[in-house]
């Protein structure tokens, strides 16, 4: 499964792309594949402060539900409005239009413990 190299990953299958002092967060192709057809995304509240690995929201599919965690500490600065009417974007474009929320980063460099695309790829394929 592909994992773009322009971002960082968590062991719980989120990705974050750092853009200056902000980060864009979504779930990986592996995560959406295990969820199957997404029917609802419970979007987080803008302005909420989260620590790294805090549970931020729940994604529901036809037969499953998965919790989403924040890869780093920050404050939710935006959510993807398109997911309200098109939650299936999580399945069809997990690394693009299926982004979930933006974070104003607490410390722009606090990315220790996150995985590179290569490390994440190894995590989900080496069996």
């Amino acid at each position, binding site marked *: 499964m592909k994992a773009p190299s322009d971002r960082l990953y968590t*062991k*719980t*299958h989120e990705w974050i792309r750092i853009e200056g002092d902000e980060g864009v967060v979504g779930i990986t192709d*592996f*995560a959406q*594949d*295990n*969820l*199957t*057809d997404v*029917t*609802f995304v419970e979007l987080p509240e803008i302005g909420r402060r989260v620590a790294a690995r805090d549970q931020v929201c*729940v994604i*529901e*599919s*036809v*037969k*499953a*539900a*998965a*919790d989403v*965690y924040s890869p780093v500490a920050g404050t939710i600065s935006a959510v993807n409005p398109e997911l309200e009417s098109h939650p299936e974007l999580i399945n069809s474009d997990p690394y693009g239009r299926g982004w979930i929320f933006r974070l104003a980063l607490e410390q722009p460099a606090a990315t220790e413990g996150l995985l590179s695309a290569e490390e994440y790829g190894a*995590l*989900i394929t*080496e*069996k």
Partner: protein
Amino acid sequence: MAPSSQRNEHAAAGEHPVYLRVIYPEPQPYRKVLHLMERLAAARAADRVTDSVLLLEHEPVITVGLKTRPEDFLLDPAEIRIRGIAVERTSRGGGPTYHGPGQLVLYPIVRLSTLPLARGGLLAALEEIARRTAADFGIRAFRRPGMPGIWTERGKLAAVGYRIRRDVSFHGLSFNVDCDLAPFSYINPCGLSGGEVTSVAVESACPPPLEEVRRCMVAHLDCLLGRRAWPVTPARLAEMLAGGSPLQG
């Protein structure tokens, strides 16, 4: 390197070579098992326990998934309880379903990233376990596009629904062996318009004992997980969780 040799290498290194397999001999109250799964999933996510799979029957219960709407009940929940069936909220995805004696449930509390999953993920793997188990008893069962679960021409034979927290799954698969099918008509089971459910007993001229179906299911489970079972009694599992002893396989 071939996937199988990689797997063996991991096994040799002691990394998740086995999973804990726990078979409950008696039908279990739903709420007790739900609490156990939640604790096991948290322990698995913290690496205090290796992967485990619970195999059991439930006492009669209608469970309500996150997606359940009031109109999914075709009979008042109070009336359902009067008929001796519990109604319980759960943390899994999906709509309502029925569990009861004569139905095998399989709950994998496993780290998804350690499984040899193909495209379609855990859902497809669980459906495949059900399909192969049905085939063992001469039942032609299949997947239906857009309608998760395993089906025969008569109706739904197996249902799937789960939750993923921190890379760990819980809840899972239910497979109708020889259970009362009437309670499915009290609900829209996971989005069905009622009625269209079946069981191994309905499908086969000579219904096999539940233990035999479980034996076949376990063989397919081991095959799809790509590892072997370490059988543990329910009492031992409870001790391990309570004592906080390392449960690494």
